[in-house]
């Protein structure tokens, strides 16, 4: 289990990337620091997928693109059937799907419930 979602910050120009690249997308430098993406992100677009991919049983599967405070975006499963534009989410570790009979784990995004 991974505790935090990690992104990669270029040691030369400071660009933060997710996923990882071997050369910086901005300056082509090859050295990076691991940084945490943080605990809160916003949903910027989403879909409820009815034609399910192999290895996923949740129907419909809600998928979305989220944006963190540092403007880095990620794709992931959104843990609600009622996604709303700009809703606040936080990453949680869990099972994503089965690929060739192996269970694959990673981060999904759960709505933050305001108390």
């Amino acid at each position, binding site marked *: 289990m991974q505790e935090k979602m990690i992104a990669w910050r270029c040691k030369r120009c400071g660009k933060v*990337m*997710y*996923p990882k690249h071997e050369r910086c*997308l901005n300056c082509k430098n090859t050295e990076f620091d691991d940084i945490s993406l943080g605990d809160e992100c916003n949903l*910027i*677009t*989403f*879909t*409820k*997928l*009815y*034609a*399910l*991919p*192999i*290895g*996923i049983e949740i129907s*419909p*599967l809600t*998928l*979305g*693109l989220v944006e963190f405070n540092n403007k880095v*975006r*990620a*794709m*992931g*499963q959104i843990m609600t059937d009622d996604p709303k*534009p700009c809703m606040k989410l936080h990453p949680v570790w869990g099972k*994503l*799907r089965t*690929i060739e009979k192996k269970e*694959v784990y*990673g981060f*999904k995004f759960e709505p933050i419930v305001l108390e």
Partner: protein
Amino acid sequence: MMRDVAIIGCSMTKFGRLDGKDLMEILVEASLKAIDDAGVSECDFDSVYVGNMLAGELSHQSAIASALVDRINLIPASAERIENGPASGGSAVKNGFLAVASGASDMVLVAGGEKMTGVDTSTISDLMSTLNHPDAEYVHGATMPAMAALFTRLYMERYSLTERHLAMVAVKNHANGMKNPYAALHKLCTVEDAMTSAMVSDPLRLYHCCPISDGAAAVVLCPAEKAKEFTTKPVKILGFGHATDTHTLQEREDPIILKSVKIAAERAFKMAKLNPRDMDVAELHDAFAILEIAESEDIGFFKKGEGQLALEKGVTAIDGELPINPSGGLKSKGHPVGATGVAQIVELVWQLRGEAGQRQVKDPERALACNFGGFGNNTIIHILERGD
């Protein structure tokens, strides 16, 4: 110094469910008909390029270009398969163009083909999804319709694009496909049909997505200066543009700008010394309805966010100012992935020769084809001109 390149022959199989014919049979059929169309049955070929994405996975066959030259005796021509996802066909045409333009080859066959039916839809969908980023997209369950749906929703929020506009792309392309004997679907659809069809990945419904198809297409290329020896109606390839973008959708500065399309178009227009206003007809890669609209903007035909206005006004209809997808597009013609980029060129050659039958656009002189790979991370654009 590059040589001018001409297309002297072309052909395609019918697209759709081709029961009883395997991948090699359809590649052979399209290739022989193209060679016959060019009138070069007795000529030697220097090189062969075969666009294909999934022969190993779906047909249990590798090195299909070697197999094709053997079946139709083009030995000892050089032969290679070109795999570039859904842009494999366009990549194969580009390689054929470069072989002639560079002076390395005087007679080139470019074929593209895919056999996709007869396998369950979830398997095809999964294989197509593997072109997404493995760790950042595929693993989460991102299929191609899901990618297109995320993109479509962003578009709808930014611009005055509605589900009705997506339906209108389907209505136009189904109507065009009715006039194309090679199209997979011969069925008119109404806006209501499209807007009430099954939800695939909201807001995308069944009629906003292209059908799974089999099919093959082929063209014969030679130096333009020699084309008149073989045909009275050569079509010149004036230029191409090919460009990439980030693998993931999320990393694009503005996810609804198709940078690979923009740059490929800029490069193609620069090479052809033309601009978007010079085009009379276009075949765009409408694997999903939104893509016809987005490509028409990022190529430069219409301002960003105004592609749907052109669609509404009938500008992109067969009898409009800039007909788009007179063939019926991927939506109605079908999308056998390796064949698509070659078949777009075949349609435009027919249009430029005035041989497109009921779907003939009025007297076109120049045409553009856009073959879109990945989810927008690898695009090839060709510009053609009537040679007479």
